[in-house]
């Protein structure tokens, strides 16, 4: 009985430690640190970054490990670790003329 009981006591502690993640969002000029839940949609983080930096969310791209991040993604689905970085890139366009 006691063997079965001890892991049950440890689980909530482990889950509590890893519930929040520290994520750095950078566009190479500015760096913003966020602390978010693993299950929080990254849309919140994107909106917060764009509001703070005065950018239009439609004109920026968020990338994690070279892959585009969707607003509906969350740290858990992207397998993000504590201290990971989200890159922000301004949209580019070209035609020449």
């Amino acid at each position: 009985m006691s063997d079965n009981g001890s892991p049950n006591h440890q689980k909530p502690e482990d889950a509590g430690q890893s519930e929040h993640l520290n994520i750095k969002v950078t566009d190479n000029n500015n760096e913003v640190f966020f602390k978010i839940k693993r299950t929080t949609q990254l849309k919140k983080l994107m909106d917060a970054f764009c509001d703070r930096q005065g950018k239009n969310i439609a004109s920026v791209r968020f990338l994690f490990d070279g892959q585009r991040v969707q607003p509906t993604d969350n740290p858990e689905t992207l397998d993000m670790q504590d201290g990971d970085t989200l890159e922000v890139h301004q949209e580019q366009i070209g035609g020449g003329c």
Partner: protein
Amino acid sequence: MSTPYRPNGPTHLRQEIVNLLAQPRHLLTHPQGNMLVVADRTHDNFETTKWGPDKSLQRRRYTIDVNTDVKWPIDRFPPHMTEAEIKDKFAREARWEKLTKENRHPEISPPGIIQKGKGKGKGKGSVLLPTPNDKKELDRPSFYNPDKNFHEYVEFPNSMIQNNEMLEINNYGSWYYDNTIAVGVDIIKNLTGCEKHGIAVMQPFMARNLAILGNSAAEDVDFRHYRTEVQMITAKNFVFIPVNDAYLQYEQTGNSAGSHWALVVVDCRDSDVSMKARYYDSLGRYGNMMEIAKMCAQGVFEIIRASSARFASRKGPDNNMNFEFEADGNTPNQNKDNVSTGDRGACGPFMLGLIKELVLSIVDHVEDYGPLSMDKIDLKLPPGFGNDFGFNSQKARWVLTSLIAREKRIQDLKPLGKVLRKKSVEPWYSAANHPCRTDTALEASCAYMRSRIHTLNVEKGAPAVPAVEDEDIDMEGIL
């Protein structure tokens, strides 16, 4: 016996079944009121039910039910039917009867007997018939005319494109966004399989990172910030980089979208001794594009130099690498050498077309003559190439549009409908990621980069992150 259900289908087949029904004794599967006719063709109307696809009908792909409106008592059902199945059948029949005549589809019969198996005799277990793939109604017209908004149109492994950008691709004279270029690059990579032949085609955001790296005056660069680029470039023979003039302006003003696309190809075949970069601009030398292209090539140069075992082991004045940069004068002009006259702003299609042409020429050469003949490949375009190339930007726009729409169709047909994301990225210094030059030199360079990263981690420690708790998201920690 009431009027049997007549399946939808060609007239001759329907007549054949009606004829068969005229001899019910030969077709009776059970001696009671309900009757089952087993057909050897699919039930071809299950997609068009008024209430959406009926999975039970899909499952009975090779059967056609005949209803006689006579309910079977439970004790007279076929032996292979379980009690749950019989109850389910009655429930579905009850639902059917509740429907008004107007709501009933004329071509669909009420739910009949669930024939699950081939075995009709005693002791035969029910064997499931082969289940057809889930079919889905495709909204084909919307593939080429999606709603004009910023929603995702389709996602590729390393890129995605929005509806508004998809609408622009085929417009005469429209400019290309970085997403369009990224999707085009992904398509070229998938179609040519170029990565297996030592060719890396970078995405536009990687090009920007390379420009930042190449422009950086810092001596001790933290390569952790460039691990995607390092992973792509290490052990490659050619690196293709789409360059936009926004990179330098963005660094200076903090906000720029750019106005032109050009291509730079870095030749890393002799990267232990020298590196060559070749610049292809469809407008000659547009603005400060060449300067930015040089910065991108310099970024590749820095990564190669940092990951080279030779430069890691040798110190002093010999620790230098020759770096050549040259603009190709025979690059076709997007206005003069364009079959589709008047398509202003075609640098995007031109650049993608040139990437495809150069990548295919390398891949074909390696496949024809083997990897040892790689030294004979010359990236210099021959005189008169613009004429021979015969580039048609309008056709290129259409080809790109149709290929992206095709990918959308493929993904929409899949039950999941989405490209599966990679759960985690392999360490970029893993030799398994580099199929081209997995030799001892590469192993040594990987070991060097591993040790370097470890040193950087120890020296710099974890980034300073404010530890402030909040329910969902914490904005207090803004630096």
